[in-house]
C-alpha cells in the first residue's frame, strides 16, 4: 500500500472536563470518500477542527503527502489545501454571497478589493453546485438550503485537495442533496481527499468508499464500506447492548379529540391548515424540507403570527377556541433549533428544566410566587432519572452537555409541566442513533400516558417508527392524510407531488 495522502497521527485533545480525543490516528487517500461516523460527542468535529486549524491539539502530528505540516490556524489549513464545510453554517446575514465566501481573504487590484474577479469566480463555483444566484445577493435573502450551498461553495473556492464535509445535508432538500453528492463524486474523480461526516448511514452507504468509526474519542474500527452492514457500523458506534432499540415501532390507542385546528393561514406561508389531534396518538407531520411544517408548528403556539383560522383545545369535556397567544399554556413545544430557542445555555440543568413549570413549583399561599427550591430539585431529579439524562449535578450548566442530553433536558422541561399536547419539531436533529432511540421511546411513553403529539421529522424512517397517523404537507398546505398503514412510497410520493391526485 502506498503512503496515504493525509495522515493524522496520535491526535489527542482535551477540554476542561472532557478528553475529546485520545490518541486518534486517521488516514485518507486521494480519490476516495471517507465516512467519519460516531455517536454525538464522539469527537468527529473536534478531530476535523484540528485538521482545519480551528483547534490546537494537545499532541499528535499531521502529515500531508508524507511531509509533516503544522496547522495552527484556518489560514494554515487553507494554505495546505484543506477546506472545511462546517456542521453549523457560518453565514453573514447582512453581507453578500460573495463577501461571505471570500471574507477571510479577498483578492486585491489597485489597492481595493477586486470584486469583478470575485463575482466571476463565485458564479463559476456556484454554477458547479447547480446554483444560479447572483453573488451580490445578501445572505439573509436566500433560503437555508441555498446558504448551505454557499457554505460548500466557499470550501471549493481555492480548489482544495482535502475537503471536509461535517454534516452538510441537514438543511438540503433531497434534490439539492443528490446534486451535492454528484459534485462530491466529481471531486473524488478529480483526485481530492474527501472526508464526510454524517449521522445518516444511508448516505454513508450510497456515497462513501471507506468508513472510520469514532467512539468516545477513540478509533472504534473502520474499513471498506462494502464490507459492513448498517448494523455493524451502529454496533461499532454505540457498543453492543443498545442496538436492539433501534428499529422499534410502537402503536398507541387513540382516544378522544384533544385539539382541533381549523383553517389557519398566513398569507404566502401556510394555507388553510385543518386537522385534529387525539389523546394518546402521535401524528407525523411529513413533507419536504421547506414545505411549511415548522411554520405550522410555530403558528400553533403563537411564535409566528397567523392571518386567520381557529385553534380549539379540549377543556373539561368541551372543545374551546383558544386565542393564539394562549395556546402555549396547553402545548409543550420543542423547536428545531435547540441552542437558539431551546436552552438557557449558561444556566444550570435545574433552572432549564423548571423553566416552563415555575408557577407550579411555589410555596403555599402567602408566598405563592416564591419558588420552593426543594420541590424544584426533587422534580428535576425525577425527570433526570426518568429520562436517564447524564449530568454530573443539577447545577451543571447545560452548555456543557452533549446534544442528546441537551435535547432530553428540553423534553424534560415539558414533562415536568405535563401539558396535554406536544409539538416536536425535528426532535432528534443532529443526535446519534442511541439518543434518537431514547427520544423515540419517550415519545411513545408520552402517547401511552395520553398526550397528543405532533411530530415533525425529515427522516422518513424516524417518522414512520413513531407515528400513528400522517399529515403530508406541500407548499404550505396539507395535501394528504394517511393512517398507520401508509407506506414509505405513499408519503414520499404525495410530498413530492408525483402522485398528488391520489386522495
Amino acid at each position, binding site marked *: 500500500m502506498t503512503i496515504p495522502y493525509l495522515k493524522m497521527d496520535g491526535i489527542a485533545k482535551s477540554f476542561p472536563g472532557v478528553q475529546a480525543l485520545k490518541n486518534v490516528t486517521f488516514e485518507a487517500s486521494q480519490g476516495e470518500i471517507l465516512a467519519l461516523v460516531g455517536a454525538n460527542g464522539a469527537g468527529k468535529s473536534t478531530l476535523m477542527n484540528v485538521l482545519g486549524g480551528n483547534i490546537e491539539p494537545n499532541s499528535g502530528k499531521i502529515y500531508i503527502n508524507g511531509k509533516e505540516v503544522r496547522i495552527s490556524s484556518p489560514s494554515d489549513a487553507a494554505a495546505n489545501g484543506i477546506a472545511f464545510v462546517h456542521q453549523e453554517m*457560518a453565514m453573514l446575514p447582512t453581507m453578500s454571497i460573495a463577501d461571505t465566501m471570500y471574507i477571510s481573504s479577498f483578492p486585491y487590484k489597485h489597492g481595493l478589493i477586486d470584486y469583478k474577479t470575485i463575482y466571476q469566480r463565485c458564479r463559476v463555483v456556484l454554477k458547479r453546485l447547480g446554483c444560479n444566484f447572483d453573488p451580490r445577493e445578501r445572505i439573509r435573502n436566500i433560503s437555508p438550503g441555498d446558504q448551505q450551498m454557499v457554505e460548500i461553495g466557499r470550501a471549493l473556492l481555492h480548489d482544495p485537495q482535502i475537503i471536509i464535509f461535517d454534516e452538510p445535508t441537514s438543511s438540503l432538500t433531497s*434534490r439539492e442533496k443528490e446534486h451535492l453528492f454528484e459534485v462530491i463524486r466529481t471531486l473524488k474523480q478529480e483526485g481530492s481527499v474527501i472526508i464526510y461526516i454524517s449521522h445518516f448511514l444511508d448516505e454513508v452507504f450510497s456515497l462513501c468508499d471507506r468508513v472510520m468509526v469514532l467512539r468516545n474519542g477513540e478509533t472504534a474500527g473502520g474499513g471498506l464500506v462494502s464490507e459492513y452492514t448498517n448494523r455493524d457500523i451502529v454496533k461499532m458506534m454505540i457498543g453492543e447492548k443498545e442496538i436492539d432499540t433501534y428499529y422499534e415501532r410502537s402503536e398507541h390507542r387513540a382516544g378522544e379529540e384533544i385539539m382541533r385546528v381549523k383553517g389557519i393561514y398566513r398569507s404566502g*406561508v401556510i394555507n388553510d391548515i385543518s386537522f385534529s389531534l387525539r389523546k394518546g396518538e402521535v401524528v407525523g407531520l411529513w413533507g419536504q424540507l421547506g414545505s411549511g411544517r415548522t411554520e405550522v408548528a410555530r403558528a400553533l403556539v403563537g411564535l409566528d403570527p397567523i392571518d386567520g383560522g381557529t385553534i380549539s383545545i379540549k377543556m373539561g369535556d368541551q372543545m374551546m377556541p383558544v386565542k393564539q397567544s394562549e395556546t402555549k399554556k396547553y402545548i409543550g413545544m420543542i423547536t428545531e433549533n435547540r441552542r437558539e430557542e431551546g436552552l438557557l445555555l449558561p444556566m444550570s440543568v435545574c433552572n432549564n428544566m423548571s423553566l416552563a413549570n415555575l408557577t407550579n413549583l411555589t410555596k403555599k399561599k402567602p408566598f405563592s410566587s416564591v419558588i420552593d427550591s426543594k420541590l424544584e430539585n426533587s422534580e428535576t431529579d425525577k425527570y433526570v432519572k426518568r429520562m436517564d439524562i447524564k449530568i454530573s449535578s443539577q447545577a451543571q450548566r447545560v452548555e456543557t452537555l452533549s446534544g442528546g442530553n441537551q435535547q432530553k433536558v428540553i423534553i424534560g422541561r415539558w414533562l415536568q409541566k405535563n401539558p396535554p399536547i406536544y409539538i416536536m419539531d425535528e426532535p432528534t436533529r443532529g443526535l446519534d442513533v442511541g439518543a434518537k432511540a431514547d427520544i423515540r421511546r419517550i415519545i411513545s411513553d408520552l402517547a401511552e400516558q395520553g398526550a397528543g403529539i405532533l411530530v415533525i421529522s425529515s427522516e422518513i424512517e424516524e417518522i414512520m417508527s413513531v407515528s400513528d397517523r400522517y399529515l403530508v404537507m406541500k407548499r404550505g398546505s396539507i395535501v394528504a392524510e394517511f393512517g398507520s398503514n401508509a407506506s414509505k412510497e405513499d408519503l414520499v410520493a404525495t410530498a413530492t407531488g408525483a402522485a398528488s391526485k391520489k386522495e
Partner: protein
Amino acid sequence: MTKKQHNFSLRDFLFTYGFLLVLLLVIVYFSVTAPSFFSMNAAMSILHTAAPLLIIASGLAFVIMTKRIDISVGSIAYLSAAIGALMISRMGLPIPLAVVSMLVLSCLMGVLNGFFVVILNVNPMIATFGTQLAFRGIGLLLTNSMVVSLPRSIRFLGNKKVGPIYIDILFSLFILLIMMLIHSRTQFGRQVVAIGNDISIAEKLGIKEKRISFFAYVVCGLMAGIGAIIMSLQVGSVTPTSGTSYEFTAIAMLVIGGVSLYGGEGTILPGVLIGGITLAVIETGLNYIGASVYVYSFVRGGVIFVSMFADSLKTQVKPKVKIMEDEPTTVSNAQ
C-alpha cells in the same frame, strides 16, 4: 429558486434610505417657514456645520458596525485638539508637526480604548465612559481649563472657501469617500462588518477578530482627531467644553443614517452622510426659524425616535418566506 438578476426592491430602498424622504420634507418645511433657508448659503452652512461631526461619525461607524460602541469620541477630539493647540500657541511648534502629533495622539487614545474593550474585555460602553472622563480630565489638567486659541494665521482655514464651497466640506467629503472605500472595498472594512454579524462566526471564518476590532477603535480615534482639527479651526480655539456630547450627536447621525447598533449594517455613503445632513438641517433650520433653545433637544429626540421606529418596522416586516420545493409541479394546489 433561481434568480436572474440582483433585483432592485423599492421596499428595501425605502427602508434603507427612507430618511431621504423625511429629509426632503424637513427641507421643504423650513424653506416655506423661513424663505432664506432655501439658499446656497444655507446649504453650505449646513454642510459646514456637519463637517467635523461627519468625520467623527464615520470613524464611530466602524466601531458600531462591529457591534460595539465608543462614547469617548468627544473627549478624544477635545484632548487631541487641546494638545495640538497648546503645541502651536504655547510651545510654538511648527503646525505640521503639531498636526501629526495630534493625529498620533488620537490614534493612541483609540489604542487605549481598543485595549480596554478588546483585550481586557471591558464592556465597550463602560470602558469608553471611563476614558471619556479620563481624557477630558487630562485635557483640563493640561490647559488648566483655559480657552486655547489658535493663531490667526491658521484660523482663516476654518472658513476658507473654494468658490461657494467651504474647504472643510470638501475635506470631509473626501474623508467620507475614503472611509466608504475602506468600508466597502477593503478586507478590513468587510471583516468589520462580518464581526458585527457575529463575532464567533467571524472568528470561525479565520478573521482575526481581536486585531480587526482593535483597529476599528484606532480608526475611530483617528477620525475623532481629524474631526477635532476641523472643529477647532472653525471655532478658532479649543475650549474646555469642546466636543462635549459629540458622542451622542454622532450616534444620532449614524442611527438616522441607517447604521444599526446591532452591528453589521449600514453604509458610510450615503448612510452616514444623509444621517449627518438630516440632523444638521434640523438644527440649522431651527436656527433659521428662530426656534426657542428649549425645543432643540425635544425635536432631536423626536427625530431619533421616529427614525428608530421606522427601523423597527423594517425588522418587523420580515420578508415573506418563499415556499420552495424540489419538483416544480404543474398541478395546481390540490385541496
